């Protein structure tokens, strides 16, 4: 039995259709990702899974329960890390966790034990009695994650957990999320960072304008929708308009972006030498492995982070 099962789930706000019929399943113990640009419908979907937003149509089941009927029972077994921090500013770090545990009806003593343990886990034990306000963005995120674990959730929902964090804070967070996965927690995460999706997710769906446009493992999606390597060319601004046609025979596919040209080829170096043979002299060139960014570009014709 999957932890989350969605069958043609729709969500509309008035005339605006945020989610236009999505189907997917998340298995127990899986780290599942929703990758897409802002406005793809990821957060709307997360709120529906979090049982704080009813579906407009379609069927959604979590732990094989209906959110419309058993919302409270589902929420009791789930942890939520929302996109923007909504920590309790009137309480200390420790009190934030204890009080949150109390909302789940966990005995007070047990709440205190878990809170201490979790502050340790997110490396904030020394700040236990401080207020929330002076914490840095990364610390607030870590506290929010600690809070979401107070009820020992079977399923953890993370909505853009690393947006706005510096690289170091992101890596600390990723490492904590790995550990949760090792402990058997099912994780569902939205992100518009392809490296995050590639690093963390066992499986993911690519979303665009309220629809799922592809589904698979990060590696599988890249193999299916892109070539092994990509040659990136930076040309002078006076590059001829017919550059795409001139490069047509090079590699499997050519994508002309405003600031660069991408040549998809299984052998990037070979593609570069044929570019030189054509008499095209790029200002700079780079051969790299294909990423989910390329998959997204291929599927939607747009780049992920605009």
């Amino acid at each position: 039995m999957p932890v989350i099962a969605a069958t043609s789930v729709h969500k509309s706000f008035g005339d605006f259709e945020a989610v236009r019929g999505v189907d997917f399943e998340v298995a127990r113990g899986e780290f599942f990702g929703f990758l897409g640009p802002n406005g793809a419908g990821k957060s709307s979907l997360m709120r529906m899974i979090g049982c704080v937003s009813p579906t407009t149509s379609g069927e959604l089941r979590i732990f094989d329960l209906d959110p419309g009927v058993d919302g409270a029972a589902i929420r009791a077994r789930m942890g939520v890390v929302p996109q923007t921090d909504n920590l309790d500013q009137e309480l200390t770090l420790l009190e934030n966790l204890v009080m949150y545990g109390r909302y789940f009806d966990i005995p007070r003593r047990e709440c205190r034990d878990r809170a201490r343990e979790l502050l340790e886990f997110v490396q904030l034990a020394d700040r236990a009695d401080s207020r929330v306000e002076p914490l840095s963005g990364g610390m607030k995120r870590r506290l929010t994650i600690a809070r979401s674990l107070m009820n020992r959730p079977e399923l953890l929902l993370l909505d853009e957990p690393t947006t706005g964090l510096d690289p170091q804070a992101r890596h600390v967070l990723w490492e904590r999320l790995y550990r949760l996965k090792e402990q058997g927690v099912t994780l569902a995460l939205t992100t518009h960072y392809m490296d995050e999706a590639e690093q963390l997710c066992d499986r993911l769906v690519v979303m665009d304008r309220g629809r799922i446009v592809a589904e698979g493992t990060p590696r599988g999606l890249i193999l299916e929708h892109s070539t092994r390597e990509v040659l990136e060319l930076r040309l002078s601004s006076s590059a001829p308009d017919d550059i795409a046609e001139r490069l047509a025979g090079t590699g499997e596919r050519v994508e002309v972006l405003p600031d660069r040209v991408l040549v998809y080829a299984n052998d990037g170096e070979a593609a570069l030498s044929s570019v030189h043979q054509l008499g095209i002299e790029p200002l700079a060139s780079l051969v790299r492995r294909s990423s989910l960014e390329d998959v997204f570009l291929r599927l939607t014709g747009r780049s992920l982070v605009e």
Partner: protein
Amino acid sequence: MSATTAEKSVTAPTLRVVPGTLRGAGRMVERSILVYRRTWLIIVSGFFEPLFYLLSIRIGFGALVGDVQTPNGPVDYAVFVAPALMASSAMNGAVYDSTMNIFFKLKHARLYETVLSTPLGPSAVAVGEITWALMRGVLYSVAFLGCMAALGMVVSWWALLALPACVLIGLAFASAGMAVTTYMRGWNDFEFIPAATLPMFVLSATFYPLSSYGGLSWVVQLSPLYHGVALVRAACLGDGSWGLLGHVAVLAVMTVIGLRVASRRIGTLLLT
């Protein structure tokens, strides 16, 4: 298997809603206590309000105005007005707690958003916050009554019944206040609140008996505070009558409607 789950989903929620709401409401109260434990001075400051109010009528008006005629005979003016001030103070406290405080937590602190991601539901939030407002209200009412007694303004033991009367006033106004707050768009809209409470304060048979309003007495009876004043005054002066049940009913209806609207609106605002 599918038959049993379907059955469960139909019967279980109706059985669970009431105890679940009360338990959840208890958690909201617990949070308020945790927060106010550090800021208890704010609560203490509230005790001075009745003292100043009462001193002003005892020393001020009380000396200038003579006795007031009530159905049970003449009553000293200060003794006549004090219960009305007690009722008004219960209203003001409840309105303040259920409007400004709730709006801040709803829009700025986003507390309820957090709470609703746990098993707690909107009705637990509404009931819990109103219960806390009432608990504070009871403290102040006790202080008010104590001041009245100390200044010699209490004439009967029945005055103790003014406490439950004030709880009812608090309940009615906190429920209505919270319901109204869910419609507020920004802090500017709060200007409307004194526009509603101030006329009520002046025109609820607070400072003169209903009979002195003459042909306009029906207008006075539209004010919910009037019904509260009538209850507290009857308790303090010790004149009970079956007619008081009518006043209780008005405030009870106001509570039920307010609570319903408030919890439904919290749902529509946050669970979209």
